[in-house]
């Protein structure tokens, strides 16, 4: 066996190495230097991200359990950048609040392991690898959700997540057994999916498990509670990285493995997309807590992603990936601002943001851009992401759905504007006073802003994705 082929797992190996390094560092570094561990972790991950951008050959490992293609490679890099931004945004919080509790390293380790799980999930070539990846990505996050062990809400959030996740993965596994029974294999390439009732049953149960992770209605209920109770970084991670990866995987599976069931799942996506958009938006309207607010908003966003899945071709795949990428930046921007303000003042409600622009103009502008991007207002990226999704759905003639989708954009715009209203329109006696963010936070927010401003209009990126998403349909 040629060990050089293991280089195909470069992302995974490096990340595992980082994990171990963090453990070592935790042991080696002295008590008073613990704060620097945060910088160390961020730095390591930045290096990892940079290395991740280097090109990587396509290939298969472990007899087909692990596959890497340009597409998965690309998507892992997107996740890396997302996590890097997240770490930059969380650094202050870690340094100020967490290091004193001796838990900073754990944060890095848990995030890294969860990310590792996502890598495996993305690259999975069979259901076993997929399952391991799924669990590896979920369990550490549950631990992270319950991270602030002194807060009841945090524990509550953790327990809700882990119980719901267990149920979801149980259901999903049950579905996998059904498919195993009918197709005779767990390897994606060797499974022959036919539209028999048992297969459909299996598929639907499997889908429920994945839908749980993407928080599609009606499998989304955990989302808001968990986001609210968990530390902001964790909520951010859940809503951006974990959801994005899961959506990506869902797309790959639907477009390849479950292609024979297309007539089934297209209708399923149609219905779930409708329900998800409406549920997410209607709940988001009346939220006061920004984390909860963003939770429902991210549910609605997930509904939009499904629109792209309706077009089972290069266009659909491209628009979905493109949207996820844009969504990563937009949502991280919003969470970043919430994080910054919460660190400084502990305030997390929309009302608290009254008059924010007059005291903290830059943060407000970042928030404005992020919200506009989420809402889909040009010229920021979100607009392009959304409109391309609609284009994909329309290409198959789903004009009614597109219409309902845009109506939902309007509803969504309403509640995004509520935040804008608080920040820009309102004046307040006790507005959050001016404060200066640390450089890491600034850097994190700057990257998101650049992403929001540039990605949408920078068409070569879209074309690149278009090209590589061709791979999905090759075999």
């Amino acid at each position, binding site marked *: 066996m040629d060990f050089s082929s293991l280089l195909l797992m470069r992302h995974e190996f490096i990340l595992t190495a980082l994990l171990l390094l963090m453990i070592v560092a935790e042991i080696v570094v002295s008590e008073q230097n613990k704060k620097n561990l945060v910088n160390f972790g961020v730095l390591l991950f930045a290096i990892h991200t940079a290395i991740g951008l280097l090109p990587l050959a396509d290939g298969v490992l472990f007899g087909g359990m692990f596959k890497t293609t340009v597409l998965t490679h690309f998507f892992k890099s997107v996740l890396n950048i997302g996590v890097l931004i997240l770490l930059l945004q969380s650094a202050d919080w870690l340094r100020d609040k967490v290091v004193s509790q001796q838990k900073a390293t754990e944060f890095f380790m848990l995030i890294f392991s969860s990310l590792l799980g996502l890598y495996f999930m993305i690259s999975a070539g*069979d*259901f*076993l690898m997929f*399952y*391991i990846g799924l*669990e590896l990505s979920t*369990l550490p996050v*549950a*631990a992270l959700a*319950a991270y602030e*062990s*002194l*807060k*009841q*809400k945090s*524990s*509550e*959030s*953790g*327990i*809700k997540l*882990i*119980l719901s996740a*267990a*149920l979801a993965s*149980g*259901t999903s*596994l*049950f579905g*996998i*057994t059904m498919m*195993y*029974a009918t197709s*005779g*294999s*767990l*390897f994606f390439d060797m499974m022959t999916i036919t539209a028999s009732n048992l297969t459909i049953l299996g598929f639907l149960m499997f889908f429920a498990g994945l839908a749980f992770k993407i928080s599609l209605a009606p499998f989304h209920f955990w989302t*808001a*509670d968990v986001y*609210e*109770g968990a530390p902001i970084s964790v909520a951010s991670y859940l809503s951006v990285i974990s959801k994005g990866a899961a959506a990506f995987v869902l797309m790959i599976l639907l477009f390849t493995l479950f292609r024979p069931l297309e007539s089934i799942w297209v209708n399923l996506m149609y219905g779930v997309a409708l329900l998800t958009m409406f549920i997410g938006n209607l709940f988001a309207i*009346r939220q006061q807590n920004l984390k*909860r607010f963003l939770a429902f908003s991210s549910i609605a966003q997930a509904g939009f992603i499904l629109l792209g899945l309706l077009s089972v071709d290069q266009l659909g795949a491209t628009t979905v990936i493109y949207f996820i990428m844009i969504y990563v930046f937009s949502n991280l921007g919003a969470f970043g601002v919430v994080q910054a303000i919460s660190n400084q003042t502990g305030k997390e409600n929309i009302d608290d943001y009254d008059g924010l622009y007059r005291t903290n103009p830059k943060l407000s502008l970042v928030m404005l851009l992020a919200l506009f991007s989420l809402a889909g207002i040009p010229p920021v990226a979100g607009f392009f992401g959304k409109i391309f999704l609609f284009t994909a759905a329309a290409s198959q003639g789903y004009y009614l759905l597109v219409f309902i989708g845009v109506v939902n954009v309007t509803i969504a715009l309403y509640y995004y504007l509520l935040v804008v209203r608080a920040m820009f329109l309102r004046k307040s006696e006790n507005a959050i006073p001016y404060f200066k963010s640390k450089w890491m936070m600034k850097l994190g927010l700057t990257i998101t802003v650049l992403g929001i401003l540039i990605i949408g209009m920078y068409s070569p990126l879209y074309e690149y994705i278009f090209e590589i998403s061709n791979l999905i349909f090759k075999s």
Partner: protein
Amino acid sequence: MIQGVSIYEILTVTTLLFFIGIYGFITRKNLISILLSVELILNSVAINFVVINKYLYPDMLQGVYFSVFIIAVAAAETALAISIIINLYRLVTSVEVKATETMKF
């Protein structure tokens, strides 16, 4: 393969087990019992894998391996859940589900 027992019977049992688990999950008032119900669900799945492997595709061991992993992951999951429950207990001195309903709407 067990003589005289067809795959249907075993699958019926596992399916029952699965739904008993779900029933338990939905109705139990205690977090620990909910966790037990989760175990039931996972076990039903594990049995499923083994049985399907054994009865239908005996020449490869995919299902058996899978069940091993399920057991391992279930263990980790339980450990984590228990630790969170313990933490919760420290905060509110209760392991009832009711204690986890502060965030809603």
